[in-house]
């Protein structure tokens, strides 16, 4: 039995005219310690799917279980990183992390909590910026704080919602590497589900990639394993044969589904042949 089991999820929202079916028949298995990316275009229902798996929202039908237990709300051992950082602007970097530590480890003394939070920030290279507020930090530094906050709770499960989407390309790669290091560095493996619109990012970080086939309602395509050795780097991926193969496979799955949608529903854009390294967004 897989660690995270998603079975036949469906979710719809009330819309101006009737209901909008966002997801339907979504099933997914994630093994313990595995890093799985769900790749799809913006507005394809990725974020909805992640909040369902994470227990932030409830599905209309279907089930999600983690470690054999059906989820009811957000799990105590789960952590999140969101695209827009979700830091509290009235707290300093340290206070933001401490809030998470206090909530997760109430049995620690205040001093232990503070030291624990400090260490988490030092691990992402923010030892000197702990007393700054989010406004005084760059986008990359803010996301580092968010990552530190996530790892400070020593999570079993990590949910990443387009974690690097708001960052420039250079910062993004540094942080991707850092995330990869943190995932492998802890005292126990972290099971991670990431959603992203970047095929490159997915190949760089994942053990398995699941393309999302846009609807509505959206469904998941066949998972593609990424069996490249770690650590990986973007430079290496650009030429690696297997990476090229995986990339081509995902992009063709995604573009095929986009074309299918364009034909069936007279969509907004016709899809030109996609350059292989562009994010999926640009394919549409």
């Amino acid at each position, binding site marked *: 039995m897989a660690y995270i089991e998603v079975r036949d999820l469906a979710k719809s929202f009330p819309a101006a005219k009737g209901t909008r079916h966002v997801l339907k028949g979504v099933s997914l298995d994630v093994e313990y310690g595995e890093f799985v990316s769900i790749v799809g275009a913006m507005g394809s229902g990725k974020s909805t799917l992640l909040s369902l798996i994470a227990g932030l929202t409830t599905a209309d039908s279907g089930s999600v279980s983690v470690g054999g237990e059906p989820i009811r709300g*957000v799990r*105590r051992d*789960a952590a*999140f990183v969101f695209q827009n950082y979700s830091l509290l602007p*009235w707290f300093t970097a340290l206070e933001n992390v401490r*809030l*998470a530590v206090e909530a997760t480890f109430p049995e620690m003394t205040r001093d232990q909590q503070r030291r624990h939070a400090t260490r988490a920030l030092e691990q992402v290279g923010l030892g000197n910026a702990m007393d700054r507020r989010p406004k005084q930090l760059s986008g990359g530094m803010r996301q580092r704080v968010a990552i530190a906050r996530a790892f400070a*709770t020593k999570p079993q499960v990590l949910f990443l919602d387009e974690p690097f989407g708001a960052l420039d390309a250079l910062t993004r790669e540094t942080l991707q590497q850092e995330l990869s290091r943190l995932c492998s560095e802890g005292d126990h493996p972290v099971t991670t589900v990431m959603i992203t619109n970047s095929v490159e990012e997915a190949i760089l970080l994942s053990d398995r990639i699941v393309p999302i086939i846009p609807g509505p309602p959206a469904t998941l395509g066949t998972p593609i394993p990424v069996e490249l050795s770690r650590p990986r780097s973007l430079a290496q991926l650009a030429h690696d044969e297997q990476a090229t193969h995986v990339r081509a496979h995902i992009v063709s799955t995604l573009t095929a589904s986009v074309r299918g949608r364009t034909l069936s529903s007279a969509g907004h854009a016709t899809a030109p042949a996609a350059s292989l390294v562009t994010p999926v967004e640009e394919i549409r």
Partner: protein
Amino acid sequence: MAKRIVNMLLPLCGIGMAVLVWWAASRLVSDLPSPFRTWEESKVYILEPLTYRGETDQGIVLLAYYSLLRVARGFLLGIAIATPIGFLLGVSPTLTRMFDPIMQVLRPISPLAWLPLGLVLFQKSEPAALFAIAVCSMWPTVINTMMGVRAIPQDYWNVAKVLRLSKFTTFTKIIVPATLPYMFTGYRLSLGIAWLVIVASEMLTGTPGVGGFLWQEYNSLVYAHILLAIITIGVVGFVLDRLMGVAESKLRTI
């Protein structure tokens, strides 16, 4: 530099013109004291602002002080009631739907209407005045606090959800700081109303203060002092608003 001097002089020109209009009006209406006469008859109150000559005959700062003290008490009472109500209405759409009609009906009621009810309820003028101030000044705080809670971005609620914060922690670490700027806008508006109400309630109850002084001088036909009281009320109200503005910008959390 020259622009700064002009910018400083322009308000003075405006004041000068207003005084000129006042003076012209005083030539036309015989009962209206001219600016000069007003100053002559009022200067004892301004030049000896802290002198106590009798219960209703005191320096202008003393009179303003009594009024401010009353306003402070009424205002604090008002926001102490209004802030929790605002939070409750902000988090609960059900409560909002339940109480919104009552609020909309109570809000436009004039202080002059509340005061007699206060006198009936409390038998004394002082608590009746506080009651009127509190009831009239609480609405902007209720409404702004409520709006502030509703305006909290989904991101912050997500933090609470994801970290599984307790209700209490969510309130102290997320809802209150996120709402603080709105709350203070509410406090500022509430204080403005409280200051409006004070004059009316002092006039009706005859308690010492700027409003009481105004009414008493009207009854004793010293019209220059009415103008003195009016100007004092305006200046004090302006200063209060500025002070709240400063507090508001100091407490910016987002």
